């Protein structure tokens, strides 16, 4: 046939299980055991409460600019719990509970936004990357870690977060392409929260979905309801299983919404309508999941209140531990640059130490 349509090979699907009205597709329900389900809810709630606390702390000047994740808790929490400890998680910057789940102390998040490098130091034994500030620049790292797994023959996988805006960067493209070529065990999870600061999703790219971008790289794309923790869980779990079985990468688009400000320095009323926010508030993943758990009798009013209480205590503890760890030494900016610090950097350290002495600046400054 001299003129014919081209059919592409890879799977391109949409998935929703627990919809915005609370209706469940029973055939697809993963029927999480009670422990896992409650844990997932708790993770989501932790992100919500920490978020609220951080916004307050920013207002009080106790941390700097903060980027909340309100509305996106299902997308990041249900994905991260699909990863085993020997797997790796590569973060963007709106996934506080992913850190928490993976074993980073909750105050890590506060340290990062509080202006401390310590917020980027993974605890021993935790296989993760810290917050990545340059948008999409972490995708090649996730690809590289997955490449290492493949080269070493390790049956592991990498989960990598990114935003809808991040898909416009060259790094997105290059990482996806390498992942396809080498069939790497990596899941690129795009949190399509409809906005990249003030740029709406439709102005970010002309493709109808972000999931379909996988077509360009010869692997599967899955769009799912990112406010549906069950869909996120099922979609990610499948992708992880496929990756570990040698089936290569998956691009997941989690359709969600940033209910709050981009960061505390942002004023969203400049660029989006209240009605839009209202519409999405009705799709909030937290009440949606709580109702599901109540209906399924996995939680009841009392046990739900207990979760709430525990979460608040944990957040309060994290804030306390954060406040106690503020006392850092400005001099140590010279100590971690290299494994083997060159003489000239040591000399500059001495010079800087002398300045601090003259100026009476000590640790904790």
């Amino acid at each position: 046939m001299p003129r014919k349509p081209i059919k592409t090979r890879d799977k391109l699907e949409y998935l929703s299980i627990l919809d915005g009205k609370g209706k469940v597709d029973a055939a697809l329900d993963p029927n999480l055991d009670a422990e896992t389900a409650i844990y997932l809810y708790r993770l989501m709630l932790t992100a919500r409460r920490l978020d609220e606390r951080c916004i307050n702390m920013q207002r009080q000047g106790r941390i700097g600019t903060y980027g909340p994740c309100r509305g996106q808790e299902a997308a990041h929490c249900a994905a991260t719990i699909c990863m085993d400890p020997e797997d790796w998680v590569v973060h963007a910057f709106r996934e506080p509970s992913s850190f928490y789940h993976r074993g980073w102390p909750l105050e890590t998040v506060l340290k990062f936004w509080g202006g401390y490098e310590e917020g980027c130091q993974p605890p021993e034994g935790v296989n993760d990357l810290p917050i990545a500030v340059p948008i999409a620049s972490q995708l090649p790292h996730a690809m590289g870690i997955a490449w290492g797994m493949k080269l070493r023959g390790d049956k592991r996988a990498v989960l990598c977060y990114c935003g809808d805006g991040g898909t416009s960067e060259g790094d997105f493209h290059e990482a996806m392409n390498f992942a396809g070529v080498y069939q790497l065990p990596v899941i690129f999870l795009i949190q399509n929260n409809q906005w990249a600061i003030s740029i709406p999703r439709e102005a970010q790219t002309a493709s109808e979905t972000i999931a379909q971008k996988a077509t360009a790289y010869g692997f599967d794309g899955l769009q799912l309801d990112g406010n549906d923790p069950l869909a996120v869980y099922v979609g990610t779990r499948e992708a992880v299983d496929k990756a570990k079985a040698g089936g290569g990468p998956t691009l997941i688009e989690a359709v969600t919404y940033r209910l709050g400000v981009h960061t505390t320095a942002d004023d969203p009323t400049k660029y989006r309508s209240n009605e839009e926010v209202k519409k999405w508030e009705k799709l909030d993943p937290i009440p949606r999941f709580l109702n599901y758990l109540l209906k399924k009798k996995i939680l009841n009013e009392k046990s739900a209140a207990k979760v709430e209480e525990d979460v608040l205590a944990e957040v309060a503890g994290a804030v306390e531990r954060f406040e106690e760890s503020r006392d850092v030494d400005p001099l140590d900016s010279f100590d971690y640059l290299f494994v083997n610090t060159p003489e000239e950097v040591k000399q500059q350290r001495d010079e800087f130490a002398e300045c601090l002495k003259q100026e009476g600046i000590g640790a904790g400054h």
Partner: protein
Amino acid sequence: MTTIEDTNTSQQRSKAGNMTMMNMVGALNLAMDDALRTDDSVVLLGQDIGQDEGVFRVTADLLARYGKDRVIDTPLAEGAIIGGAVGLAIYGMKPVAEMQFSGFAYQAFHQVEQHVSRFHNRTRGRYPMSMVIRMPYGGGIRAVEHHSESREAYYAHTPGLHMVMPSSPRNARALLLESIRCPDPVIFYEPKAVYRSFKEEVPEEPETMPIGKARIAREGSDISLIAWGAMVRPALEAAEDLQNSDRVSVEVVDLLSVSPMDTQTIVHSVAKTGRAAVVQEGPRNCGIGAEVIARIVEHGLMHLEAPIKRIGGYDVQFPYFARERAFLPSAERIANGLREVIAFE
């Protein structure tokens, strides 16, 4: 339109028209408004510069005033912003591109090095790269990683670019307007620490000043202190302090443009004072300070009575903001550095 002819006095009155007190954000906004109004080939492009008016509000009101074909919100891709600007410039427009922070301009560094700096030379003059790439740089605003760097030396080391760094509202306005009118590409590094830190009288009438001319920000006779961008304020403060405390007279040279660099003004000052120091935020190795020293040595070695000191500018990563106040050169640190040079015999 007037030009700040005598750049040696920063506060010089514009001959014509009214003055308004404004901060640097307002002054930069004014320059872009001037340019958009008077030259319809000027287009602004960047992330969040339209509806959102820029994350620092530098482009406030401009979308409303000039419409979305002149003030263009783009997707999140620095390479395409600069690469697209190259195409726009070739097609005869005057793009003024914003990089949201200088720390993210490296995503477009290949387009800057391979094309912005070369197209005019490559095509033997056929396609001038008349464009401005604006970006906020430097520390001091308690921002997260990559939001505090000063890497003007990357651009100063790249042939074919001008690298301009204003220090106050009035010179920011005049230099930005001049940069937009310049037929050659200008990297325009805006000291974000200065954005809202003070106000200055700025003439309502469009005003420009030449690129490549330094100004004597303060006259003095004992030592020359070379500074640029955000470091000019603490430099002036240090000079004032030293005058009061040590009776040392410091001449402060504000480079305004680090490439081309005004060797003559620097060397002239050092010839007078015999001593010099440089203060910088950016890394020391191969930084602007090194270049300043090299030029003083090449053209004024015989005047030197003491080694030239580089104050600040350590070859480490700019720390996250909890450590930044200790890290950034303060007036006190600068004064101490100057004392050392003065003490040398």
